């Protein structure tokens, strides 16, 4: 099983460039961890209680499989080329996001109330959107 920490609310910045580049938005995945991860109190606080995250738990897939599907498209230190840095490449937050608002109401209610939801990769992947290509799945 893999567990994905997802930002539940927008962070914003007055500078529009910084806002787009550096601020996590609702639905952005933050980290992917293995089953049973010892999440912190700020990470597990449900949105209804003022929490800023939700956690999607996905049995039947390994963190590596999720990593390959999602994390591989995150910018990472090892993925940044020397030439990109020299050219002043902007390191974006996340290329992929979860369309939380399109989830069924029952799921959204569960996430809001408990902060976690257990599902399958087949069920959730259609709610994953690539911000660059604007494609899902």
């Amino acid at each position, binding site marked *: 099983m893999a567990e994905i*920490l997802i930002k539940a609310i927008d962070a914003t*910045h007055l500078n529009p460039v910084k806002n787009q580049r*550096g601020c*996590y938005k609702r639905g952005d995945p933050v*980290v992917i961890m293995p089953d049973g991860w010892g999440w*912190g109190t*700020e990470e597990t606080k449900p949105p209804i209680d003022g929490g800023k995250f939700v956690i999607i738990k996905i049995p039947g897939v390994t963190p590596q499989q999720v990593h390959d599907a999602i994390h591989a498209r995150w910018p990472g230190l090892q993925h940044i080329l020397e030439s990109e*840095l020299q050219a002043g490449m902007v390191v974006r937050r996340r290329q992929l996001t979860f369309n939380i608002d399109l989830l069924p109401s029952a799921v959204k209610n569960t996430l809001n109330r408990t902060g976690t939801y257990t599902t399958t990769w087949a069920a959730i992947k259609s709610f994953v959107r690539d911000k660059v290509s604007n494609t899902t799945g």
Partner: protein
Amino acid sequence: MADTVKTIKSSGGDYSSLAGWEAGQQKTISAGDRELAEYYSFDDTTFCTIDGWTTVETGYILVYTPASERHDGKWNVAKARNTGGIIISEEYVRLDGLQFDTGAGRSIIISVSAGTGEIRISNLFSTNTFRSIDIYSVGALTIKVWNAVLYVSGGGQYGAILLNDADATLYCYNVTAYHAGGYLAFYQTAGSMNLVNCLGVSGIAQAFYGTMASVTYCASNDATADDWSGAGNRINQTFTFVDSANGDFHLASTDAGARDYGVSDPGSGLFSDDIDGVARSGSWDIGADEYVAAGGGLSISAARSYTQAVNRAAVY
């Protein structure tokens, strides 16, 4: 005037990774306030980008380890450690007491910030096979690094630390840069690079390379430390470390290359101890470590109390 302190632990903390902390705490920091991330002993495998905040000179981000969780000047798997790396894209950020082992990736990138600011990196241990610190595409930042071991254990790129930004000014005090992969140790391609009490080792005779603004009281294993005519530089030195083959760059008792050859207080009051928390005295040693005879040294760091650590963090 308030500090917000959040703990980062493998379980039972406020957050379970630096990336989670950064995502949760991202905000505008008011002058006089500080946002503190307190790292505890576990392996944080996630990489973290610090971006999207507003920071000011007196309202900054500090990521640090309490004394009980801190490395002892060499890689320590029992202490707080980061194997993912950090990108700093904010103007006022301080890192204190962290250790990195980022494999084939960089440990710290300072990049994509636009304004003036000051980044401080202190008491750092970094090992990998690429580069420890990269500085690119920033505004008129001042970056201060002290008491740091930057160890590239093999392979790698040019520079254990690289300054490549015309707007930036870098000060390194008591930094040990050891490039075992056969490339440069201290590398400047643009910007103002100022080195004091720094120790450079390179396998290709280019421990210090670039157009340096100033190099004083530095030492190299080759003929480069005095290429910029500063005072007190020592070239073609043989350094004797405790166990360099295994990444321990504490000076051995028999060292005759760096011990007592530095200048005192190069940072004008910025720090007075070494990477282990050992008080420096007399003519400071060159590099991250201040040698002390048996009975001193590492035990001082271990004896620091939690309260002391918080106070220490308040200073930095």
